């Protein structure tokens, strides 16, 4: 997540600089060279962050099953994310893709199921025991 944030800020700074195009070429008023320094620093920092061994590229994403609800009902994640579901109900639940792309066994209380989403798309799922339960994973 950190990498994405920094990249966005960098792009924003670029836009500001272009806005102040003068005859002498692009320049950023008030900020001048300073606009480029933070941008460069940010890019450097981003590179350092991604190289850091103890920082995962994608944060794990979780869905809780509670009171026969998937929480959150819709979760958006980047491609390559492993989503983990955990059942907090005494009642058995499943996580079953409505297009049969993935599916868990019956999950007891505290049992988990994980699936890694590699392709972008929208993935609706439901519970085989309680078809009124609906959830979606949106993969960017």
């Amino acid at each position, binding site marked *: 997540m950190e990498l994405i944030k920094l990249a966005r800020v960098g792009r924003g700074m670029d836009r500001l600089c272009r806005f102040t195009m003068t005859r002498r070429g692009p320049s950023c008023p008030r900020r001048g060279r300073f606009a480029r320094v933070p941008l460069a620093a940010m890019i450097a920092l981003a590179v350092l962050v991604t190289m850091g061994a103890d920082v995962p590229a994608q944060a794990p994403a979780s869905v809780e099953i509670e009171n*026969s609800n998937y929480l959150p009902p819709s979760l958006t994640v980047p491609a390559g994310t492993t989503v983990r579901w955990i059942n907090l109900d*005494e009642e058995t639940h499943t996580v079953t893709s409505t297009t049969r792309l993935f599916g868990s066994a019956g999950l007891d*209380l505290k049992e988990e199921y994980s699936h890694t989403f590699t392709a972008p798309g929208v993935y609706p799922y439901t519970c*085989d*025991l309680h*078809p009124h339960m609906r959830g979606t994973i949106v993969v960017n």
Partner: protein
Amino acid sequence: MDRISRRGFFECMAWVGTGVVWTATGGILSSRVLPAAAAEPAAGSFSFVQISDSHVGFKGEANKDAAATLQEVVTKINALPTPPSFVMHTGDLTHGQKPGAFDTVAELLKGVKAEKILYIPGEHDVFLDGGKEFLGRYANGGPGWQSFDYKGVHFVALVNVLKYKGEHLGALGSEQIAWLQKDLNGLSTSTPVVVFAHVPLWAVYPAWGWVTEDSQQAMALLTRFGSVTVLNGHIHQVLQKVEGNVTFHTAMSTAFPQPAPGVGPGPGPMKIPEAQARPMLGLREVRYVVGTSPLAVVDSTLA
């Protein structure tokens, strides 16, 4: 002479104090004056037991051992003053279709003193494999629905946990409804009919899946009968409804109670201590007395 039905005749005679109960035994009609008949069950009368939602394999706050409470229910059945003619289990034999759970249920119910034990599935019994294991065990691999006649009463056992699409768990499917129509065809309207199904056949609480989406079509086939008793499970509590000649009864579970419709965030097992749950678990005895309607439904708990 005025046209009068057999029932109407009895009603008239009861008013004048000469009501009579006719029973047929071995084809020979015999009669008894009503007050005397009330002292002993009329010949041809019988009882059966409904148990439901044993959820063997469940382990939660309300019950650490669902197999043990099922065993207690078996003991209670065997202690009934009149042994039941059969026992019907209205589904969710197992919890989560856990390996070995069906065997445990079969083992426990071997101890029941009844001629026959019948089963219809709940969603917990079929969700993993589309019903393959359950139907293999209890329906010879057939569709699972069936009917039979016993002492003049027509019994129908329906399966409404295998045909769902969309949001509603309970569904009978067009094939089963067509079968039901054929099955009921030709039965006289005075035949008492008893219908078993796991998910309630009336809209108890659709938001929690407590409804059968195509039950209206089935009920339309039943309204012509003078006495229809619908016995369901799934919601782990006793609720009743009367619609004309049809009475609906849902049953207690033998494993754990569930909240009243809409009370609380969801339909899951109530999280209460076992001692508090016991009075909400139990069995049902249904008694049929020839010539009377509706059937007498007697619920008793493990308290």
